[in-house]
């Protein structure tokens, strides 16, 4: 009996790897530190390059049923996948091919197999939250830090008795043959780049925060409003390369932020008619097939200003005055905007360092580096250790899927 494979991180890459391994008869343990799987892609609203909801990721496309079910049928019904949410890696020992991994399983306050998303608990208590109607597993999540009087009532009255507020953290040790690192990336909170006022001025946000604002399932139901006072946003400015390509923060190009800025600019100018978008950039880097986003955005009337921001000033009426140096015109421009969106650097996720050192892997600016930098096997991080998707550096959905499949192919070859 062969040991299962451990996939760390249930984002696009991790889910694809898990589904395809499971479909090939390999037992797979898929863990995620959050209670809802999906990773960064869950928060993208529309994912490029297809502008679909990302749930229809490639590995699931052939599955029968309606689109949302492609995804659910794999994660929940595929018997070879053992999905563990709220779970972190505590320690790794053993030898390649026979790793012993200690998993820290968070308290399971809500049993996803019982939760029916009836909404009773979210109505009586602030501590319960439905992350997204499409969340997986299909269950509400409970935040003990927000607990209130209603929480107990929810536990008592839950029609399916899915809630257990006295659940405790547990530990489990698993033996696995291979480890797949699919821990993704994290969007830097750019408060350190203080000229933009992020963290001080409420109307300065990041691209991922904008994506959530644009999402019809989000708090504002897709309306573009100022965080400071809820007023309708008429003018949006985006600033590229905030913390990326900057030796003071992250020297590398975050690669996908140009395309998501353009995607958002497109959505705003084509679906939010009264809003005007300006993009301040150094270079627009639409790699691979994505040049069309740039072209479409220009056609849609989005204003591109090559240059950098001199300063951002908050005005009494809630707008921001942004002074920009236009390097093509060699002039300074003053814009008045409602929302300033920073395309912030994509950094390695928290605890990436620990994982790298506990497995003795190479680091590539904090992301997982290939075991052999000269070979073309970028997904091979070590002996029986693989990485795919954002864990290797900022990556788009199709790229994450391709890398996940490469990992699966390597593991299957190793088992022959």
């Amino acid at each position: 009996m062969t040991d299962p494979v451990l996939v760390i991180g249930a984002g696009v890459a991790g889910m694809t790897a898990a589904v395809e391994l499971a479909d090939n008869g390999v037992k797979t343990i898929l863990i995620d530190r959050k209670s809802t799987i999906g990773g960064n892609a869950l928060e993208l609203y529309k994912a490029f390059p297809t502008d679909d909801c990302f749930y229809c990721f490639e590995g699931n496309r052939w599955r029968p049923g309606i689109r949302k079910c492609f995804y659910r049928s794999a994660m929940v019904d595929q018997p070879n996948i053992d999905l563990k949410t709220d779970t972190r890696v505590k320690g790794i020992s053993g030898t390649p091919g026979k790793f012993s991994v200690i998993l820290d399983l968070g308290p399971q306050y809500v049993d996803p197999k019982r939760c029916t998303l009836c909404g009773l608990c979210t109505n009586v208590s602030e501590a319960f939250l439905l992350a997204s109607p499409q969340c997986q597993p299909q269950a509400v999540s409970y935040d003990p830090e927000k607990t209130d009087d209603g929480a107990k009532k929810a536990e008592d009255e839950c029609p399916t008795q899915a809630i257990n507020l006295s659940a405790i953290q547990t530990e489990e040790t698993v033996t696995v043959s291979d480890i797949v690192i699919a821990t993704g990336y994290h969007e830097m909170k750019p408060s350190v780049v203080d000229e933009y006022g992020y963290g001080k001025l409420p109307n300065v946000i990041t691209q991922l925060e904008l994506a959530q604002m644009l999402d019809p399932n989000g708090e504002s139901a897709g309306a573009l409003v100022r965080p400071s006072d809820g007023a309708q946003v008429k003018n949006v400015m985006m600033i590229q390369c905030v913390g990326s390509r900057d030796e003071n923060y992250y020297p590398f190009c975050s690669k996908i932020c140009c395309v998501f800025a353009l995607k958002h600019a497109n959505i705003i100018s084509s679906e939010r008619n009264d809003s005007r978008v300006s993009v301040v950039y150094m270079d627009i880097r639409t790699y691979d097939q994505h040049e069309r986003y740039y072209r479409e955005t220009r056609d849609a009337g989005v204003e591109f200003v090559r240059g950098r921001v001199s300063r951002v000033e908050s005005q009494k009426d809630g707008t921001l005055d942004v002074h920009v140096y236009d390097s093509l015109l060699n002039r300074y421009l003053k814009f008045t905007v409602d929302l300033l969106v920073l395309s912030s650097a994509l950094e390695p996720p928290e605890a990436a360092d620990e994982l790298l050192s506990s497995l003795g892997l190479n680091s590539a600016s904090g992301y997982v580096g290939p075991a052999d930098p000269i070979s073309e096997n970028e997904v091979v991080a070590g002996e029986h250790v693989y990485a795919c998707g954002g864990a290797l550096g900022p990556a788009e959905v199709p790229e994450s899927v391709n890398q996940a499949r490469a990992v699966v192919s390597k593991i299957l070859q190793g088992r022959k």
Partner: protein
Amino acid sequence: MTETEEKTGPPVTLIDPIDMTKLDPKFRNDISSMPNGEELSACFACSTCTAACPIANQWDYMPHQLIRMILLGMRDEVLSSKEIWECLTCFQCQERCPQKVRVTDIFFDCKNLAAEEGHVPENVLALGKTLVDKGQLYEVINDWEREDLDLEPEVPGLSIEGIQSILKSTRTGKLVEDGE
């Protein structure tokens, strides 16, 4: 973050930025709705046009900057610029543009708009007046040159009356009249 009421104004600088709210955001639509302006918004400011231009080093605004100014809505600056009139119309910018922006033709559109608003430089108006008055820009006055070449004194087939009357009854005539 200070708790006091004291207002600290923005830092003093010598920079006097162009206030975007004072510009005309419709200007780009005015130009792109003209026959040559279809691809205007495709410009990504690579400055190939400026690289191709044989005289741009004499200008305050380079060709790519003029297109930027149109896109930003700097209507007055573009329509009163000397550059659109000094363009040699060699079409090299338009030939080379990687996004098929009809740069030279867009400058023609700008000249037409400028003329409608009365922004025609003196020297161009003077040329127009010469055309309306004389039906030609270059009169043959040194008869001896033709004589030396054994040519008859009059240029054969030269008809200036037709030209004169067409120009007089079209916009050139009107511009010259208004200019006087």
